[in-house]
């Protein structure tokens, strides 16, 4: 019996989220559907789960975290000898970042107005999707990993179209669903080939046997299918086209969650699946490089992933230059940021993974915050085009300053978190020498390129005249101009969420050490664990 309690203690954050989601659906059945009520449940659950994860990170030394495996919990399971989950400190760091994204979106969504229906569906699915993301972060088995990804994906398919009004969200949901389902079929096909090659789907067990046994051609094919499936989830470039349409068509709060949260699931999955083969590169000693399949082809794998990373950031940035709509611009910039994260995964050294992780954290704050601003601005009655934002600087000074800071951070300006993450990442790439220096150069050039479109948005906001006579203090000037700003403003929840995101972007940019230190420790532990 005690093992059951152990299990409950081990999975406390996940159970809290599950309980929160069930409570929200229960409230829906009981017809207690007020947005504030179900929203507070969501905020409370994600806050509590975040606190539990942070406590886990804080109390235990980094080497020995919740290392309870399936076999330890239930000895009879050890017949299978394959722990489905393994707690690593880096996994817990990712859990914290996922929960941070959920928390920001939940708090912001509190102020969506009481006329909004479907609150319970939104918050319930948000919590379920987060549950799936948390499980991804602790998985050490391919099937567990893919099913956890699907738990978060299926919840987000519905989340995109949950309003059931208007064509755009539903079409976005449809596209998201088709692409997502195809990519999951590809991932599972890849996993099945790996199962055929190694006789197990457990990532730790695969690492043990790889290089000695296995059918190399099956393993290679398996990793290729797995990469293409996961690349869809992580919006890497040949597989990115859906992301822009979905981020554009979805309600902006959902876009914030997709860009700030679920997309990192793909990045972490790529890290988890491919770090083993990449790290094996150094240890390989086989005369025939094809003998162990991907596990002796580490360098080739790194070149593949590195190319994918460079192509992703370049295409994302170039296409972002051409966008006229704010959400599509942010979506493309989000794609290019995925390239930076993949860069860190490709290099595979502890500093690089720390850089990628910090980049993920930065992206949660920057992009989550930016999409929340877009949602708020849409609520003020401003159109979707970049040009519709003309003169926002004088109409909404505080909101504009927040948005400007978030964009500057995305561009990588010093004293923001975006600069720190890129600095850590690129210096790790330079340290790694050789091919990776060119990756760093490509990354730097891309950062410079991205400044152009962020600067254009800032110019529109601050240096172009508003399209309408200025309404005073946010009040409606009845019909005076074509575009009077709606009264009421952002709402407290959204203001708080944007404020917190912006404050963290600046604070961690000025002094990253409180979080960068633990992340670096977690990354080196992770690399040590997977080597």
């Amino acid at each position, binding site marked *: 019996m005690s093992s059951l309690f152990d299990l409950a203690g081990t999975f406390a954050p996940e159970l809290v989220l599950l309980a929160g989601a069930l409570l929200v659906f229960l409230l829906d059945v009981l017809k207690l559907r007020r947005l504030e009520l179900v929203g507070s449940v969501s905020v409370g659950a994600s806050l509590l789960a975040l606190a539990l994860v942070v406590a886990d990170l804080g109390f235990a030394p980094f080497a020995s975290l919740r290392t309870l495996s399936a076999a330890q919990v239930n000895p009879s399971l050890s017949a299978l000898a394959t722990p489905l989950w393994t707690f690593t400190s880096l996994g817990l760091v990712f859990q914290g970042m996922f929960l941070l994204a959920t928390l920001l979106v939940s708090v912001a969504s509190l102020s969506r107005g009481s006329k909004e229906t479907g609150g319970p569906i939104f918050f319930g699915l948000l919590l379920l999707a987060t549950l799936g993301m948390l499980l991804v972060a602790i998985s050490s088995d391919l099937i567990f990993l893919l099913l956890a990804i699907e738990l978060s994906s299926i919840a987000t398919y519905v989340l995109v179209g949950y309003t059931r009004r208007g064509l755009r969200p539903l079409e976005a949901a449809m596209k998201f669903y088709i692409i997502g389902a*195809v990519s*999951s079929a590809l991932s*599972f096909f890849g996993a099945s080939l790996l199962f055929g090659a190694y006789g197990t789907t457990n990532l730790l067990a695969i690492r043990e046997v790889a290089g000695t046994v296995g059918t190399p051609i099956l393993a290679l094919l398996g990793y290729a299918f797995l990469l293409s499936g996961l690349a869809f989830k992580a919006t890497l470039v040949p597989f990115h086209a859906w992301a822009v349409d979905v981020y554009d068509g979805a309600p902006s709060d959902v876009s914030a969650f997709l860009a700030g949260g679920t997309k990192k699931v793909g990045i972490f999955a790529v890290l988890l699946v491919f770090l083993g083969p990449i790290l094996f590169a150094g240890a390989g000693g086989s005369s025939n490089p094809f003998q162990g399949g991907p596990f002796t082809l580490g360098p080739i794998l790194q070149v593949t992933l590195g190319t994918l990373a460079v192509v992703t950031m370049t295409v994302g940035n170039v296409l972002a230059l051409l966008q006229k709509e704010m959400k599509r611009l942010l979506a493309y910039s989000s794609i290019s940021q995925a390239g930076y994260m993949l860069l860190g995964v490709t290099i595979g050294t502890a500093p690089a993974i720390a850089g990628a992780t910090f980049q993920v954290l930065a992206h949660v704050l920057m992009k989550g915050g930016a999409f929340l601003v877009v949602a708020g601005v849409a609520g003020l009655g401003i159109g979707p085009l970049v040009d519709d934002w003309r003169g926002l600087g004088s109409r909404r000074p505080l909101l504009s300053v927040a948005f400007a800071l978030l964009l500057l951070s995305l561009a990588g300006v010093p004293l923001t978190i975006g600069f720190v993450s890129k600095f850590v990442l690129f210096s790790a790439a330079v340290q790694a020498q050789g091919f990776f220096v060119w990756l760093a150069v490509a990354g730097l050039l891309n950062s410079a390129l991205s400044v152009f479109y962020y600067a254009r948005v800032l110019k529109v906001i601050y240096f172009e005249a508003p399209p309408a006579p200025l309404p005073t203090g946010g009040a409606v000037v009845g019909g005076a101009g074509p575009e009077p700003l709606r009264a009421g403003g952002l709402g407290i929840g959204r203001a708080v969420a944007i404020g917190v995101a912006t404050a963290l972007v600046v604070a961690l940019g000025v002094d990253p050490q409180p979080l960068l230190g633990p992340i670096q420790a977690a990354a080196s532990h992770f690399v040590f664990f997977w080597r």
Partner: protein
Amino acid sequence: MSGLPFAGFLVLSGALLAVGLFGVLTRRNFILLLIAIEIAMNAAILNFVYFAAFARAPSPGLPGQAIAVVLIGFAATEVAVGLAIVLALNRVKGSINVAEASELKL
């Protein structure tokens, strides 16, 4: 591990995947798309069953069969969500043709 009709089975599951992907690329009716996705998914499930039958020495092949059952359940879940999206789309638009979904420019 010897004497497996490896290639034959892999050609079968590979063909299933190819048929599924081809269907996804060519069909414009959402229901047919769902069927195509299912076919692609079943290629993976078939692989697990097949490889479980010829699993490596220590493991009794059980994990592969268990995974296959789990994946069948997962596929059903996924289709349920797809059908829900079809229903909502049909209610708003009166059509489930994917090609007519052009509100969002590509």
